């Protein structure tokens, strides 16, 4: 019978022995009641310790379900709402833009009409003698200048263009001189 294997039993139980030494321990314990008893005792203690550690660290009932919502909220992709597809968004944007444009145009037209209706030249009055100038002075405020409708364009009838080109006759050097001049 080989020597006792006391010093290897701890490592055997912990799975730390290489395959060769592991087999040697098993073969020795098969023929040595003393070492077999030690080995069985060590295995029981190891199993007891493992069970106690597992039991002491097990999650209480219900904790898995209780914690999942927090994890899910942080991890799961946010739901996408398909009830408002993109083409509807585009259409709504277009309609809004159109309403704003029409409204803006109406406002401008009304403002122009109001300006035309309320525009009247104002005669300057005050210390200046009406005889100082023979023509009335039109006082234009900055606003009225800015908003004054443009004066009617003076249309001048363009002069008719010559329909045919008739250049002045040029003397021809190669022509024979006129006799008698």
């Amino acid at each position, binding site marked *: 019978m080989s020597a006792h294997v006391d010093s290897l039993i*701890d490592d055997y139980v*912990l799975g730390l022995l290489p395959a060769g030494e592991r087999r040697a321990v098993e073969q020795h314990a098969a023929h040595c009641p003393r070492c077999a008893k030690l080995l069985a005792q060590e295995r029981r203690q190891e199993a*007891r310790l493992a069970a*106690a550690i*597992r039991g002491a660290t097990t999650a209480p009932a219900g904790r*898995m379900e209780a914690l999942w919502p927090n994890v899910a909220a*942080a991890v799961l992709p946010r739901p996408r709402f398909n009830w408002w597809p993109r083409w509807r968004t585009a259409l709504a944007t277009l309609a809004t833009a159109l309403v704003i444009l029409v409204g803006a145009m109406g406002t401008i037209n009304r403002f122009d009409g109001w300006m035309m209706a309320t525009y009247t030249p104002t005669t300057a009055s005050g210390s200046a003698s009406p005889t100082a100038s023979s023509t009335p002075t039109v006082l234009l405020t900055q606003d009225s200048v800015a908003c004054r409708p443009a004066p009617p364009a003076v249309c001048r009838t363009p002069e008719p263009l010559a329909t045919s080109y008739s250049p002045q006759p040029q003397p021809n050097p190669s022509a024979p001189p006129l006799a008698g001049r």
Partner: protein
Amino acid sequence: MSILVSGRVYTLKDSLDLIERCLHGDEVAYAALYRVYFYDIYRLVYGLLGHREDTEEVVQDSFVYAMRNLARYDPERASFRTWLFTIATSRARNKRRRLWLPTISLGQLLQIGVEPAVPNQTARPPETHAEDSNLQATVRKALCQLSPKLREAAVLRYFEGLTYKEMGQILNIPHKTAESRVRLAHKVLREKLEVED
């Protein structure tokens, strides 16, 4: 671990399928992924912090980060569980650091040549629960007395199917270091439990 979501049973093996569906915005897949891994993550974080309120905060934060960054997960580098554990462990460490900070007084830090007193490893005392067995209460107390590194090793050790290589990935240490930490944590835990017994 299998979970029933919307009439279908999901297991850890379905993770890649669930991740793919999550990336396409499938809300059921998000819920299934959460349910499949919730208890593992909770146990890990609670084992590391020892306080329910802090644990729930870190668990939620870990899931939110992982689910927002699913596209970064590379199945060829690690299993999804390992990736998730790495995120949760890192956040639990950050939480623990924030809890430690107020426990070191400025006076302690300014004493030249004097090592600052080691702050209490858990700013909050270990919780006790009415439903705990004596052994569970003892284990909880023993876990909280371990140093953070040993506690991480001990807690990860008792997740079935987690190899030392995976532990090394999660803790960002060589797997040999993970092995030695587990060995030490196991020894300390046994001593504490024997004393308590």
